[in-house]
C-alpha cells in the first residue's frame, strides 16, 4: 500500500554532489530539470502565474541555500517540494489576507466538512450559462473550485492529482500523517465533485 518515497536518482545524486563540490552549474541543471513541475505546482497552489514564477525562483534559491543540509534520504524533488509548498502556502496566506477578504465574508460552514468546502468552491455554480459545458469550462470550474479550497486541501490535491505524489510522499512533504493525507485528499475531491457536478451534468 502506497509507494515508498522515491530515492534520490543517481543523476540527481551526482548533480547534488557536484553542487556541494562547488560546481554551481550543476545546480542549474537541477533547476532546469524540475522547474516546470515546481512552477506548475506553485501556480496551482498560489493561483497566480507571475507569483508562481517568483516563488519558483525563490524556492530554488532556498534549496541551494539548504543543500548542504540535504541528506538525500528522500528524493531531491520531494525535498525541494517541501520548500515550495511552504513558500506557496505562506505567500497565499499573505495574499489572501490582502485581497480575498470578501471571500470569507459571510462564510459559515455547516454540516459536514465536505459540504462546507463544497459551499466555498461551489459559489459560482449558477454562473454558467445554460447549455453543455465544454471541457474548457469544466477546467475553469475546477480552477475556481481549487482556488477557494482551504489551503491544506488544495495543497494535497495539487500534490496528488497534479503532481502525482504518493500519499507517503505527500505526508513527508506536508509533514502530516499518511492517514491525514488520505482523508484530506478525499474531502478535497468530494468538495470539487460537488462544485463541478452541475457542469458535469450539463456536459453529459
Amino acid at each position: 500500500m502506497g509507494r515508498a518515497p522515491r530515492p534520490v536518482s543517481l543523476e540527481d545524486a551526482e548533480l547534488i554532489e557536484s553542487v556541494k563540490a562547488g560546481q554551481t552549474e550543476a545546480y542549474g541543471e537541477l533547476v532546469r530539470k524540475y522547474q516546470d513541475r515546481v512552477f506548475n505546482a506553485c501556480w496551482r497552489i498560489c493561483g497566480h502565474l507571475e507569483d508562481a514564477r517568483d516563488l519558483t525562483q525563490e524556492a530554488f534559491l532556498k534549496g541551494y541555500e539548504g543543500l548542504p543540509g540535504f541528506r538525500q534520504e528522500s528524493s531531491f524533488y520531494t525535498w525541494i517540494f517541501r520548500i515550495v509548498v511552504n513558500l506557496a502556502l505562506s505567500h497565499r496566506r499573505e495574499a489572501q489576507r490582502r485581497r480575498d477578504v470578501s471571500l470569507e465574508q459571510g462564510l459559515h460552514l455547516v454540516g459536514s466538512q465536505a459540504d462546507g468546502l463544497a459551499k466555498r468552491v461551489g459559489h459560482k455554480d449558477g454562473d454558467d450559462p445554460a447549455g453543455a459545458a465544454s471541457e474548457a469550462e469544466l477546467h475553469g470550474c475546477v480552477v475556481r473550485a481549487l482556488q477557494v479550497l482551504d489551503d491544506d486541501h488544495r495543497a494535497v490535491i495539487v500534490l496528488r492529482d497534479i503532481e502525482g505524489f504518493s500519499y507517503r510522499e505527500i505526508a513527508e512533504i506536508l509533514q502530516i500523517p499518511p492517514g491525514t493525507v488520505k482523508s484530506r485528499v478525499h474531502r478535497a475531491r468530494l468538495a470539487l465533485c460537488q462544485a463541478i457536478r452541475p457542469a458535469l451534468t450539463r456536459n453529459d
Partner: protein
Amino acid sequence: MSNIDQEQLGEWLSAYLDGELNPEQRELVEGRLREDESARRLLDELRRTVNLVSSLPRHCAPGSIAEDVQLHVERSELLGEPEEPSVRSGGRRRPVLAVLSMAAALGLFAVGLRIIVTNRATEPQMGESIVALAPDQGKGRHIAELAEEEVASQPKGGPRREARPTKAVAMRDTSAESALTSDQPAPPADRSEKEMSLVATADFSRKIRAGLGTESVSTHAFANETVRLRVVARDDADRDTVTDKVVAYLAERRAADLAVAMTEGSDRTALASSFYYRGDPGINYVEPSEQQVLVRASRRELEGMMDELERYLPATDSVALVAGPLSIHGLGRARTALYGLGEPAPAVTMGRGPYALGDKAEAVDGERGEKDLTSPDTTPARVDDLFDDLLETIGLDPEKLAGLPAPKPDVAPDGPSTSKAPTVAKAKKAEAYDRLVTPATVGAQDASARAGGRGGRKDEAPALEGPPSLVERRLKALEDLRRGAKRPEPSEGPGIGGVTAAPEKVAAVSPGSETVAMQPDEPYVTLVVQVMVGKPEPPKPAKAARAAKSKTKPKPQDEKKPRKSRAAE
C-alpha cells in the same frame, strides 16, 4: 465493510483510485462496489474529478528561471558564502539571502531609475520627452554610482567616470561596459558583510548598466526592461472604461512601431498575451478580472508616455496608481508606491503585489521575518533616497501627488500640501473619479483638453449611443493604432515629445537636444498598464481580532475527528 459509513467509504474509494489500498482493503472495496450502486456512482464521480484536475493545462516555467537562479548562485559563490550564516550573523537573518535580496532590490531600483530617470530639476513640460539618464548631480544620479562610491571607500575618487550619459538616447552605456570589464569586484575574502553587500550592489548595478549583452547577465531580462502602471478601479465597468481610456490614449499618441497588446485575464488561464516586437516575443501574465495593455517602446518614448498616462489617469481616492519596476525575475520583489485609495496618507512602503484597493504595501515576507530588503546592512536611508528619486522622477512624488490638482482645471485643488495627507476634498475626488469613468468614445478624446496639458480628459465625453461592445471598440482602437490613423501631428498637442515614427526607426526630439534615432536592435522597454478591480479593504481588525477570526475560520477537522467507524472497522 458493509458497516462502513459514507465518509469512510469515500476515503477508501479515493485511496482505491490512487492505488493506495493494500490488497485486503482493495478486495473489500471491490466487493462493496459490486453490490452498491451509489458507491459505484461516487467512484465514477471521483474518477472524473481526478481526471479533470490532472488534465488541467500546464505551463512551462519561464526560461529565465534557471538562468537567474544560476546567476544568483554564482554571485553568492563569488562573494564567498559564509559557512555558518546563521551562527555568524547571530540572528535570524541569512546573510547570503540578504546580500542577494539587497542586490536584487537595489538592482531593481537601478533598472527602474535607468528606465525612467528624468531630470526634474527642470520640470519638463507636458509633451517634452525629456531626459537625462544620469545628470551630474542631484536626484537623478544612478544608483550604481552611489553604490560604487561607497564600495570603493576611496574618497578621492577611485576611477569615477567622467563621461556620464546626459541624455536618454544613450541606450547603451558603453562607459559602464568598460567599467564592467575593468572594475570587477575585489575578492570578498577580507570584506565585511556590509562591504560584500555593497560589492554585490555595485556589481549588480554595473552589470545592469553595462548589461545589455554581457554574458554573465540574464540579458533578456535586463536589457529589455519592464515598468508597470497599475490602475485599480472600483468595479468591472470602471475597469473597462479605464482600459478604454488607456487604449484611446495609445491610439492617439503612439508611434507607429510600438507593439501594443491588450488582453483580459480569464478564469481559465492566466496566460495573457504573447506578442512580438522586432522579433522578440513578449509574454505577460494577467490575473483573472485584470486587463492589461502592453506597450513596447524605446525608453524615451516610454518616459513621455508614463508621464502623460499618469496625468491622463487622474490620481483620486478611487484609483490607485502603482508605478514601479516589475520583477526582473530576481527575487520578485518590487518596491512600489500606492497612492490615494482613501487612506489618510499615501502609502509608500515596500512590498510586492498584487494590491487591492485600500491596501498598503507591506514589508516583503514580513510574516516570515525576512525583511532582508530593509536590513540595516542595506543602508536603508540610501535606499529610501533612491526610491524617492524614483518616485520623483516618474512624477509620483507623494507630496506632489497629495497636492495634485483635480484633473479638471476648474476644479481647484485645496492647494499644495506639505503633509502627506490628501488635500483634495472627497467630493471633488469622487467627481474626478466619475469623470474618469465616464464612458468615452475611443479615439474621441478631446484635443482641446490635451492642449490644456491634461492628456485628453474630457468631462463632456458623450455617452455612447448604442455603443459597440468593448471588444469591438478596442479592436477598432488597436486597428487604428496599427494604421497610425490617429497619429497626432507634432504640433497638435503635447504628444510624446514630438515623436515621429517610421517602421524601423523612431525619432524623438528631446528638449534642447538633437534628433536621435532608435535603432532596430536598440533595447526597448515594456510598459504594462494593468487595470484591475479592487475592493476597498475593510478596516483592518486588531491583531487579536484577526487571530480570533482565523480561529473561527473553518478548518478541516480530519485530523481531530474521532474515527469511530474506522476503529470499528
